[in-house]
């Protein structure tokens, strides 16, 4: 009793020879099918090179173009030859020239001897699996495919459209329920001979000849008719990427392949010398008799596909430059923007850093320079504080900053004095948390020692800018977490909104704030606003301030708000 290997070969004949010898050395009969595309002289040399190997036959050659009938015809002929020439064979294993046995062949034989009635063939109904790439799943069984996908893509597509439009459907032979799965199977003599000697085989062949990619469905479908015990998985480890082409294994996958405990893997890069040496020349791997466990390989390749299709959120680079709306995360992490807080409170940055543990910058978009935390001239990623470098692409500045500091929450100040071009981008970024005290820009003016005419002019300018910013934040497109208070509203009860914002940042444990930021002394601020009004400049963004308010900051200083002692 033994396992017969059917090998489909089309390139890297040297490696195929190595493999054939490896299989034969362990006592497995081998039948090789060489693709018709291989030139005759090369084919002859290949046959001659293997002429010393006993129990090795070559089957009739077919042209095996991907997705066409040739592959099935080749497997059929080779299998027939195998069954008739080697009556001892109980299982037939379909492999390719770039498959590599990872475990000693004896283990495979023993494994199959223990399961004499089991057919290992991945076989699933089309409706239930999302495997197909390119949208042809059920239609591959109900349409005609007379044109080659490789050579006549245009006609192929047009003919599909044509059949869709006119609702042309093929008749599926009676009793056939289309199944598909990996083309690399291992079938018992019973099942395989039943398929090959079926009186209705001509009928089936005629049908499958015009099915799209029949090598993934012919045996997979017909095995369901005859097999008594189907194990719907392939013994060959074969991973596909998002375009449906197989992943390739290289030298550096050696440990991964060793630990996978799979019997056979494909596809191996023909020049992966170390792999061929490790698995073919000295297969002294100790037998452990475990089941195949390709979990780790699965994860690595799944990650690769994910990287290719979704990428790393917030990264803009030479080979990832998503169109607007396709970023999968416009920025690399969550961040907070505070507008008006550092104007209203003394040393707000220091307080915020203590309260949240986040990195708190000043006005990153200030006209003079980017005010990084701690006054650094350069920050993570060698991002300079130079305003020219920043303003040539304010969006890249933001995405770079957040990419460079991923893992650490970033907070920064913003305001109407700063570069306004970026505001629009914040507003649409779900990672942004924006808190605005509108009109707080007036506080530094109130404190300043400038001439009142200049103050009036500046106040008018800032009010106009901030009003526009608020409009952008309130636009229906904005996706950021946005909170806007007028200044009058805010100083009424400053701790409550602060607590909410800090909780949302959620860096530290959710204790109540132990320390309140110190508010600027606003005595006379109402009068200051009234003076502006008297000059014809009506400040409205800060809400309604009475001309002579209660000096709140004084009262605040005395109170110890929300202090909880342990």
């Amino acid at each position, binding site marked *: 009793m033994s396992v017969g290997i059917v090998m489909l070969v089309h390139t890297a004949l040297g490696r195929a020879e190595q493999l054939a010898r490896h299989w034969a050395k362990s006592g497995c009969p081998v039948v090789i099918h060489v693709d018709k595309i291989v030139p005759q002289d090369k084919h002859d040399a290949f046959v001659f090179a293997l002429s010393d190997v006993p129990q090795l036959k070559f089957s009739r050659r077919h042209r095996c173009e991907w997705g066409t009938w040739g592959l099935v015809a080749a497997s059929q002929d080779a299998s027939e030859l195998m069954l008739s020439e080697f009556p001892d064979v109980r299982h037939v294993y379909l492999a390719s020239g770039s498959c590599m046995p990872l475990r000693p062949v004896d283990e495979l034989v023993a494994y199959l001897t223990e399961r004499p009635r089991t057919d290992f063939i991945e076989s699933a109904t089309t409706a239930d699996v999302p495997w197909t790439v390119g949208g042809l799943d059920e239609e591959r069984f109900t349409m005609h495919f007379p044109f080659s996908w490789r050579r006549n893509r245009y006609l192929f597509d047009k003919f599909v459209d044509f059949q869709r439009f006119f609702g042309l459907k093929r008749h599926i032979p009676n009793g056939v329920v289309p199944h598909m799965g990996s083309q690399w199977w291992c079938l018992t003599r019973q099942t395989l001979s039943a398929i090959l000697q079926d009186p209705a085989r001509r009928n089936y062949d005629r049908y499958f000849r015009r099915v799209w990619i029949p090598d993934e469905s012919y045996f997979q479908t017909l095995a369901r008719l005859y097999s008594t015990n189907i194990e719907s998985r392939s013994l060959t480890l074969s991973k596909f*990427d*998002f*375009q449906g*082409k197989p*992943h*390739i294994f*290289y*030298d*550096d996958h050696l440990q991964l392949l060793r630990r996978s405990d799979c019997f056979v893997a494909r596809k191996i*890069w023909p*020049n992966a010398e170390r792999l061929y040496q490790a698995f073919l020349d000295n297969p002294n791997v100790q037998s452990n008799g475990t089941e195949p466990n390709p979990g780790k390989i699965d994860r*690595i*390749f799944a*990650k*690769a*596909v994910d*990287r*290719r*299709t*979704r*990428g*790393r959120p917030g*990264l*803009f*680079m*030479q*080979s*990832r*430059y*998503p*169109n607007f709306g*396709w*970023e*999968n995360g416009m920025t690399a992490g969550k961040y907070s923007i505070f507008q008006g807080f550092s104007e209203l409170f003394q040393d707000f940055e220091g307080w915020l850093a203590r309260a949240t543990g986040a990195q708190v910058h000043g006005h990153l978009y200030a006209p003079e320079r980017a005010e990084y935390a701690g006054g*650094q*001239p*350069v*920050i*993570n*990623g*060698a*991002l*300079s504080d*130079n305003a*020219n*470098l920043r303003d*040539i*692409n304010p969006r*890249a*500045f933001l995405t*770079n900053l957040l*990419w*460079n500091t991923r893992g650490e929450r970033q907070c920064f100040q913003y305001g109407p004095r700063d570069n306004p071009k970026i505001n629009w981008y914040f507003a649409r970024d779900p990672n942004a948390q924006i808190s605005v005290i509108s009109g707080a820009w007036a506080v530094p003016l109130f404190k300043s020692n400038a001439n009142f005419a200049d103050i009036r002019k500046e106040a008018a300018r800032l009010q106009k800018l901030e009003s526009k910013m608020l409009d952008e934040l309130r636009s229906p497109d904005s996706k950021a977490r946005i909170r806007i208070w007028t200044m009058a509203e805010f100083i009424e009860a400053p701790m409550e909104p602060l607590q909410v914002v800090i909780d949302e940042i959620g860096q530290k444990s959710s204790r109540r704030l132990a320390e309140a930021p110190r508010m600027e002394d606003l005595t006379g601020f109402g009068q200051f606003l009234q003076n502006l009004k008297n000059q014809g400049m009506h400040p409205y963004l800060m809400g309604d301030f009475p001309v002579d308010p209660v000096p709140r900051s004084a009262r605040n200083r005395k109170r110890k708000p929300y202090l909880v002692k342990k």
Partner: protein
Amino acid sequence: MGVIRSYRLRLQRRRWRIRAFRKRRDLRPVANRTDQIKQGDLFVFSTQRNEGVRLPYFLKYYRDMGVNHFFFVDNDSTDGSLDYLARQPDVSVWTTRASYKRARFGIDWMNWLLMKYAHGHWALTVDPDELFLYPFCDTRPLRALTDWLDASSIKSFSAMLLDMYPKGRIDAQPYSPGQDPLEIASWFDSGNYTIERNPKFGNLWIQGGPRARVFFKDKPALAPALNKVPLVKWDRRYAYVSSTHNLLPRGLNLVYDEWGGEKASGVLMHTKFLDTFSTKAEEELNRKQHYGASREYLAYAAGVKENPDLWCKWSEKYINWRQLEILGLMSKGNWA
């Protein structure tokens, strides 16, 4: 893209190819070993002038990677590098005394050699101070990459220019022939690159790095472009447009994914900033043969005199390609 624009680009491509064809007369073969070329060989194309000190390591680096043949254009070297190249068994070298500038900074010469010899081959077009780095380059030869690109029907491979610099003054550590330049220039800027799309050719336009940070901080728009597409499965109908920053047909510039994914990409480690730099900058300034009225070299000359330390607290020290992958400067894409 409209039919008219598409046709204009076609005309432009033809113009560059005709120009390259005319400029072939600049080139005089010194050692032509192109009869050794076999089908599927991997090529390196390069223009050099007085880079003799770098060439030993350059050749070793790419030979180890699996490059089979080198094509050099020597632009009137005076340091004996032409003889050195002519002695190498796997190098074909041409020499010229014609103007580098009038050959569009050497790219006409490259286009001609590519057109003539690289049809159907993977060709890597790099300067002698550029070291190509691709995913898994420490465990897989270049052939593994090109085989994979072939299997994936990818024709061009992006590798951004990454400026490497030493810690301390640029001229502090002398570079000797055959030495790995990354031993000296082992630092880089990891995250200050800005990207825009070039609507005409469809390529990305990348700027930033230490040159923008130090030399071009007042006029960042003039900072040198860092996007490059150096590795191309060449066809005689292709043409590089401006250095190796972009090429035609424009589909070859689409080396980036627009729908959120990452395509595989590499890095060109730019080891310009060695102790040879100041003399080079001065010489190039006098020759006035470089791009944009040599303003790059004007900026260097000014910057180099003032403060030749490009290093800053947040510079990263180069370890390996995986580090660059994690930093987001290159990507494995779906190659695993």
